[in-house]
């Protein structure tokens, strides 16, 4: 294990009189995650790995990790994985998928990785209709490097590089890249979800399952954007950050399907 903060979690057997209602799937390693309290990454990791387990495709799936907070995703996902250079996950995933056309491939990327430095790779993979899933965590900030502006940072939002709030004249507009991708004919399924309530978690899991089924059926490119919080980067408690996300992020990044079965859905929000 490369991250000194990681330790294997203990496995406990079910005490007598109690019933097992959830078990860690074998697709998760059991390493204790390094994510901050309240962060959405761990939940999305878990959902992804649960779907692989339920579809019994652990041995057929290759994941591509990004650069960002989830750079260590491969410490938690018990599958074969490649760590890509910053922004290049969609190109790496293309290479894997093209050489292993019968396997399942996904990339897992944050907003800086996918929508700033990796924009070209992201857009062109979608436009080619690459038959893999991109999981896109949008929390509007660069978490790992300490809270700088992301391409998805909201106008007026304070970060360490927009101390007075993001202003359009200097930094342009929040980048709604999922909407852009939905317009490309190569994209088959584009949806925007969240994991901040039990209901939202269930919906996100359904979306992940759907995307892997599309991949199995060779339907083409799927993108699941998960609008997430960043309590540390936003400098809020987990509870407050979720409220802030609902009030501020969702109007700019409204939840729901942007494209299903290759058909664009009516626009919501801005």
């Amino acid at each position: 294990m490369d991250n000194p903060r990681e330790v294997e979690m203990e496995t406990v057997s079910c005490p007598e009189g109690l019933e097992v209602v959830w078990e860690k799937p074998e697709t998760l390693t059991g390493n204790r995650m390094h994510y901050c309290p309240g962060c959405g990454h761990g939940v999305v990791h878990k959902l992804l790995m649960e779907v692989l387990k339920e579809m019994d495709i652990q041995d057929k799936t290759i994941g591509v990790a990004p650069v960002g907070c989830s750079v260590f995703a491969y410490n938690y996902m018990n599958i074969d994985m490649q760590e890509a250079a910053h922004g290049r996950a969609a190109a790496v995933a293309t290479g894997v998928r093209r050489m292993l056309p019968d396997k399942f491939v996904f990339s897992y990327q944050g907003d800086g990785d996918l929508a700033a430095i990796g924009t070209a790779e992201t857009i062109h993979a979608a436009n080619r209709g690459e038959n893999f899933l991109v999981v896109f965590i949008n929390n509007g900030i660069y978490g790992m490097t300490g809270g700088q502006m992301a391409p998805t940072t909201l106008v007026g939002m304070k970060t360490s590089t927009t101390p007075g709030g993001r202003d359009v004249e200097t930094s342009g507009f929040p980048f709604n890249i999922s909407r852009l991708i939905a317009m490309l004919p190569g994209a088959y399924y584009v949806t925007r979800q969240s994991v901040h309530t039990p209901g939202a978690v269930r919906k996100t899991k359904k979306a992940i399952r759907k995307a892997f089924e599309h991949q199995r059926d060779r339907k083409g490119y799927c993108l699941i954007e998960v609008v997430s919080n960043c309590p540390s980067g936003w400098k809020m408690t987990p509870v407050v950050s979720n409220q802030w996300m609902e009030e501020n992020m969702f109007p700019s990044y409204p939840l729901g399907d942007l494209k299903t079965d290759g058909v664009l859905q009516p626009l919501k929000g801005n």
Partner: protein
Amino acid sequence: MNRKNATPTEKPDIRLMKGNEALAEAAIRAGCQGYFGYPITPQSEVLEYLTEEGRKRGMVVMQVESELAAINMVYGGAGAGARVMTSSSSPGISLMQEGISYIACAEIPCLVVNVNRGGPGLGTIQPAQGDYFQATKGGGHGDYHPIVLAPASVQEMADMVYLGFDLADKYRNPTLILADGALGQMMEKVEFPEYNPADHIPEKPWATTGKPKDRERNILTSLHIQPEKMEEVNRRLQKKYETICANEVRYQLVHADDAEILVVAFGLAARISHKAVEMARAQGIRVALMRPITLYPYPYDVLRRMKSTLKGALVVEMNAGQMIEDVRLGVEGAVPVKYFGRMGGIIPTPEEVLEEIRRMSGDGHGAGDGHHHAMHDQILEERN
């Protein structure tokens, strides 16, 4: 993944081809399963030939959005266990340096071809050797080396594809073929050897092909956040480079026995220098040629062995004098080392090189044009 794209031949398979085409044909025969590239002169024939011929014979061939994407697709595809390559020319190879650094650290075997053109910047589309430093000293960030092969003929454009893939697989290291625009564009006779990829491509138990229940997951990464671990990875890489240096040096030596002057040149410059050496020999000058075939690892030892019997060495390059630094390291200050070269895509002539050899042997009067002499005088001064 199938490896059906090898074509075993029963009698010698000889053709007249462009260097780029010969290289592409050899890639198909070497069992290359995937090619990712972007058009750039003077190497676009590789992409074009493979699109036509490679696809027909079972290869995945893709023209993609940039060289940046191409090298990362090589990372992904080769990391998934396939024999994968890309090719480009100087500006495109600069874009790939990030990816090559990651590939070197994650120890993913692959082949990268640079059909060198004149630089810096957008430069010219004419042949040059200005990417020697970039190729042999690392190129991207961090301590690493690709294995670097330097062809000097269309035949070698083909031969080095097989060798390059085999070395890459043997050491889990990227191999770079450093050619130039002339070698890519010129047509010559080329013979394709019998080569059955199945006999050459090793098992790749480290590849990310999907984790079965009975093995640990495979992770390809260049991230080792703990300094102790990162140093350990570096030590492992350096040990590998030592092994490569001990076992894989290749060079050609011509007329070495009684030589007082040694001409050192690689690739096209070596081909031209060879002609000049023969002309000088005909005039009674005791001159030899050393042509490094591997630029990394570099044949320092042959220079060390020869230095005591030499009067001097002449390094001929199609750049401002890059390999000359390795020649100086090789002769360890024992003899004067002079440079002669042309830049900007201009190819030196055998007569120009002969003039430099004569000058060095004390026989010539330096009738060549001024600015070249000014250049080597300057380098002489530097040495003194």
